[in-house]
């Protein structure tokens, strides 16, 4: 259905010329002139039909045989776990798209560039990607995403981000973000907190992650709405390994509940420290906690609850198939980062199919159209993307004995 408008266009460009020539031919009275006109008409018709057939054929196969995509992300560094999950999701999506001939005669090839989690390296890789790749998948951490977005916007490179919830990412029409804003999940998490009857909250967060800082601020500003007292916060840097002094500061507030907005190994470290301190109150978190806890299978974090846009095996059939394919390929349970990345590649492929072209302007327009019509992905059957931003209600996920389960 998406192909039909481009398929009909060449025919309409042929017909006016074809009709006009016989009309002029009828008005001619001189034979030589008529003969010449006839020859011209035949030549014109031949030329037009030839051009029409070329045009039609080029429109039906205007996607090249190989379409080059690139993912720039921190495969090493503090956020390497997330980038690795994203890489796995993308690899699976590319394999699926190519083996199912989703793009008919075209196949996708994905290059993975390691930005090491450094915004300057990410920006340099983005500059090198301009003109070399049809679609760029940007880094998942906001700091790097903000660094690469202006480069890709300036050069009008179709760009898809997952995660990277900071302002300064969606700065042009050629950029879409296929992860709901983490801050949009805060109210759902706080509704859960309200249901636990906890009357006070203290927050520990990574101050060098803008999204986590925004969430911490939201938890402060929404305190009265969700009937708790905001006691204070303790901030650490994501490179700080020993967070015990920040945890002591946090516990000195004597909170009924704690919000954890940390990355990587800090999550499992915090689980251990809270357990040592005999803290048994509700712990709310953000989806980033999952990666930190998964590696350690930390049972000390049992009961931690957060809102996420996906949790294995998901809720729809597509999602369940994805989960089993992922487990077969990587011998591991997929995470939401892999799921989002899988959808992101399919989303870009759908845009390429709709555009039937790798010309940046056409792909940009198709990225918007696909999202406005509702994208059928594993994160949801009718995911809406407006002004480049994906929207979703999210699910409450609770950590229990080495894994997350959907609880609401």
């Amino acid at each position, binding site marked *: 259905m998406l192909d039909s408008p481009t398929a009909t266009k060449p025919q309409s460009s042929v017909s006016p010329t074809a009709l006009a020539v016989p009309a002029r031919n009828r008005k001619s009275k001189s034979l030589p002139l008529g003969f010449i006109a006839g020859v011209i008409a035949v030549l014109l018709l031949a030329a037009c039909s030839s051009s029409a057939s070329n045009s039609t054929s080029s429109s039906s196969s205007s996607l090249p045989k190989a379409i080059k995509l690139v993912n720039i992300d921190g495969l090493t560094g503090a956020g390497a776990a997330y980038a*690795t999950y994203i890489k796995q999701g993308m690899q699976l999506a590319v394999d699926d798209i190519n083996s199912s001939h989703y793009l008919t005669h075209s196949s996708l090839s994905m290059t993975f560039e390691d930005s090491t989690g450094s915004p300057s390296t990410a920006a340099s890789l983005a500059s090198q990607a301009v003109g070399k790749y049809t679609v760029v998948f940007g880094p998942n951490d906001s700091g790097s995403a903000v660094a690469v977005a202006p480069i890709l916007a300036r050069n009008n490179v179709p760009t898809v981000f997952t995660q990277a919830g900071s302002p300064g990412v969606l700065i042009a029409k050629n950029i879409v973000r296929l992860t709901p804003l983490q801050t949009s999940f805060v109210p759902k998490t706080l509704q859960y907190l309200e249901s636990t009857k906890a009357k006070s909250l203290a927050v520990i967060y990574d101050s060098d992650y803008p999204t986590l800082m925004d969430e911490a601020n939201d938890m402060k500003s929404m305190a009265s709405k969700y009937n708790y007292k905001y006691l204070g916060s303790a901030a650490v840097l994501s490179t700080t390994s020993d967070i015990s002094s920040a945890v002591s500061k946090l516990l000195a507030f004597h909170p009924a509940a704690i919000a954890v907005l940390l990355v990587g190994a800090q999550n499992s*470290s915090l689980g251990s420290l809270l357990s040592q301190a005999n803290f048994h109150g509700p712990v709310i978190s953000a989806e980033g906690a999952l990666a930190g806890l998964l590696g350690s299978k930390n049972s000390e974090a049992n009961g931690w609850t957060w809102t996420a846009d996906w949790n294995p095996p998901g809720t729809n059939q597509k999602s369940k198939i994805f989960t089993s394919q992922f487990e077969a390929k990587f011998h591991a349970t997929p995470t939401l980062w892999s799921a989002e990345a899988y959808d992101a590649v399919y989303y870009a492929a759908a845009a390429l199919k709709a555009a039937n072209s790798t010309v940046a302007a056409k792909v940009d327009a198709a990225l918007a159209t696909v999202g406005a019509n509702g994208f059928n992905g594993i994160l949801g059957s009718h995911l809406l993307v407006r002004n480049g931003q994906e929207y979703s209600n999210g699910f409450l996920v609770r950590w229990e004995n080495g894994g997350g389960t959907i609880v609401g």
Partner: protein
Amino acid sequence: MVGLLGRDFEKLQQVINAAVLGSIYSLFAFGIGLPWGTMNVLNLAHGSIFLLCGFICYVLSVKARVPLNLPEAAAVAIAVGVCADWLIELIVFRQIRRRSSNDGEAQLLMVIGSVGIAGIPIAIANNVTGGVPFMILQQPTHSREHELFGASISNLEISIIALSVGIVVAAALWVRFSRHGRGLRAIAVDPEIASLMGISRSRASAIVMGISGGTAGLAGVLFGEYLASLQSTSGEDLLLKGFAVVVVGGVGSLWGLLVGAFALAVGEVVVTATTSGVWTDGVSFALIIVILLLRPNGIFGRATVDRT
């Protein structure tokens, strides 16, 4: 310091936190400071050897399901650390020393060589774990907690403090009073004259690198258990702190190293407890700059104490 830290039990708890953090820094920095102060080898691969030791324990215990307890894991990690540093000494540092025209050139090449080596364990760990944090034992060690005037301290924390301070103090005494230690100090002052006096530089290097690697292994296991997990960047995160500790204490002074480690830890804990944690690294390193402006050779640098 205590007055700055805030409420009730938090004061004492933060003192304990600073003691544990200072001990971790001193044990880690000791592995950098000993070869640097005695053999003029700045081994920037120390952080990745620390990681490698914890990672090997993870592979054995979690992946291969070999049932290891904490002391056994520590023994494995120490052995891995000693072997890894010996290999570095044998394959890289010794060859560089042999082929360099002078000591200055050799020192520079060894720093560059160690940077190159540092990438290998990180890449391996990153590839195997996918950057995901990993536990070094199948089950975390639940060490007994002791109540101390409202604060708490675990057996693991007591072990970290005792082992770290004990090892650094013992090493400082060994370097100062033992025959081998005097040999090391002689090499540090003038390697050529030391070798004319019959002190084997190769043997001394092997001993120093072995001790350095062993402490990296011990630190990897203790720190990995204390934090509940490690990740591929854990060693690199500590490397800058370890380097700062050695410089502040004064290169060549193990007593200075101990003071530098606790000074940095106290600075970090006070900043975290009293301000937003955003300032922790900034204020701590600003303090280091102030110390170095006042005492360019570090707290116990050459101006006051020659070599340990």
